[in-house]
């Protein structure tokens, strides 16, 4: 899948600062109705976003329905964001809705990998910094510089492994990158098959 490259984004950040938001909450299983990576944005946070299960009447109490955040492209979250099911539909739904970066104190590892492969930047920052950011908009995520900054000039660096950064900045397809090493892979497998023939059925 081609992914939109990411370098620098200045956008409204929507606060949904709760710990342990799981992927069932990000996209309930009942909203994953087709064998597709698309058509999922309407199901994003469906359990909290609408007044009734399966319905589409917005619940005004939920932050996504606050007109102030209608154009949010950055999500502010709590610890261990994206825990639970590995369903990539969570990342697909967030990306389709328009989120390009998520700022959280920590991410579940499978969800974090899914973000990187779908053009969403997972930014790890201390919980207090995220609370501070929630009070000031817009927010700038600069992936080249590796910083998050506010209009008042305050800025914080964040860490992301070079591999992930490169893939996000270039919008690269990981399979194409790996395919460049196909000779190495074939040689490794051939040698391994002599060592561990029981693996090669």
């Amino acid at each position: 899948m081609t992914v939109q490259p990411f370098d620098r984004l200045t956008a409204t950040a929507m606060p949904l600062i709760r710990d342990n938001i799981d992927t069932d909450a990000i996209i309930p299983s009942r909203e994953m109705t087709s064998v597709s990576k698309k058509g999922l944005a309407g199901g994003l946070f469906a359990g909290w976003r609408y007044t009734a299960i399966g319905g589409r009447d917005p619940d005004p109490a939920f932050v996504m329905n606050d007109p102030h955040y209608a154009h949010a492209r950055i999500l502010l979250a709590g610890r261990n964001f994206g825990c639970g099911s590995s369903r990539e539909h969570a990342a697909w739904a967030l990306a389709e809705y328009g989120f390009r970066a998520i700022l959280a104190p920590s991410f579940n590892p499978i969800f974090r990998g899914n973000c990187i492969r779908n053009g969403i930047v997972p930014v790890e920052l201390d919980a207090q910094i995220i609370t501070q950011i929630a009070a000031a908009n817009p927010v700038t995520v600069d992936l080249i510089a590796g910083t998050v900054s506010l209009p008042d000039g305050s800025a914080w660096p964040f860490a992301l492994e070079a591999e992930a950064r490169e893939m996000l900045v270039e919008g690269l397809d990981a399979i194409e990158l790996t395919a460049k090493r196909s000779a190495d892979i074939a040689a490794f497998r051939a040698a391994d098959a002599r060592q561990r023939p029981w693996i090669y059925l």
Partner: protein
Amino acid sequence: MGKTLFEKLWDSHVIADLGGGVGLLLIDRILLHERTGGVALESLRDAGRDVLASRQTFVTMDHIVDTLPGRTDRTIMPTGTQFITATRRAANEAGLTLFDIGDPGQGIVHVISPEQAIVLPGATLVCPDSHTCTQGAMGALAWGIGSTEAEHALATATLRVRKPKTMRITVNGRLGIGVTPKDLALHILARFGSAGANGHIVEYAGEAVRALDIEGRLTLCNMATELSAFSGIIAADETTFDYLQGRAYAPTGADWDRALAAWRDLHSDDDATFDVDHVVDAAAVAPMVTWGTSPQHSVALDQPVPAFDAASGRDTREAHDRALAYMDLKPGQSLTGLPIDAAFIGSCTNARLSDLRRAAAILRGHRVAPHVKAICVPGSTSVKAQAEAEGLDRIFIDAGFEWREAGCSMCFFAGGESFGQRQRVVTSTNRNFESRQGPETRSHLASPETVAASAIAGILTDPRNRDAA
């Protein structure tokens, strides 16, 4: 300095160091199911790519397929049929081994893989399913991935993996009588929290772990993902080798001997060091139950619903209050004796033969309380057949349980069957998230024994005290 088991597996599978702690790892086994695997296979085909190691790739139907007797491609989930037919078509086109509806090998992916020795010690195994960590119990490096990563693994037999840190949880002593691997898993979650192993692979070690049979180890590793771990792993030993020998995809003859020799070295060296080392006292573990909406919200059954504890650093007050409100519970309230509406025995956590045997031993000669809807879903078609050969199905049915076909069933709600709004369910599954088992359903995770004892009593019941209930 010695190596940890994880480091041995990592080092033997690294094809290239990609820098920044990322390695290109050889993948030995890929498993797929119709929920997240079909989309990966279709996307791969649409990109014009083939499955590189098709004979090392296996597909099953477990997540969406119905579990009612007489099931077909038609599903209670409104659009489920297309997941089944698309996955079948894509698997057949790619020439993959498929355990389809009606196949004796069909079942929950993490139940059938050990059962058929698809997972082996020392192997790397991935599946687009978070509970793939279950299979680390066999001494394999097995972890859950997304569908895009599954495409990568299918196309290249490799993955680009960020190396996790290492954590060891040593469980000293022995679990008490009537205390199960599920209770240990929930005890660990209560103690370390749902982000307690984030960024780490957890090796479970110690006397209590060594003493577990394979099915108990699978239950323990199953819930490593609830700690947000990269995965869980237990070193293979004689228990593992005895279990594997003679199973469908296990090596045979001279290969078995060679494999065994290699596998015996796959344990953490005595002088290996872990980034984090935790010790748990097995004797301190009691039958557990969850009170909230995260698996970390676990307490011993004889303890009251906990009040918010800021010092735990685990939850915000808002999250704690929200969980209590969702579950309709108050701090200080007793959990033992809480009336339940439904009981569920199933899932990749607790639906293997030994789980069903232990639950049946409690149910034998009893009936579930009249108001309790009770369902048992064997983890695989093979488990179901073995249970029926032993007469366990009669015990479940005579007790008032539904006896189902194998699959994930009501471990999660996919738009089909639901336990119903505000229904309180005691369940042998792994996730008690909001609406996990149906819109607004309230789930209490527990062992199969606790589910069985509670179903009979109609209230949450410590299975050790069931005669007193």
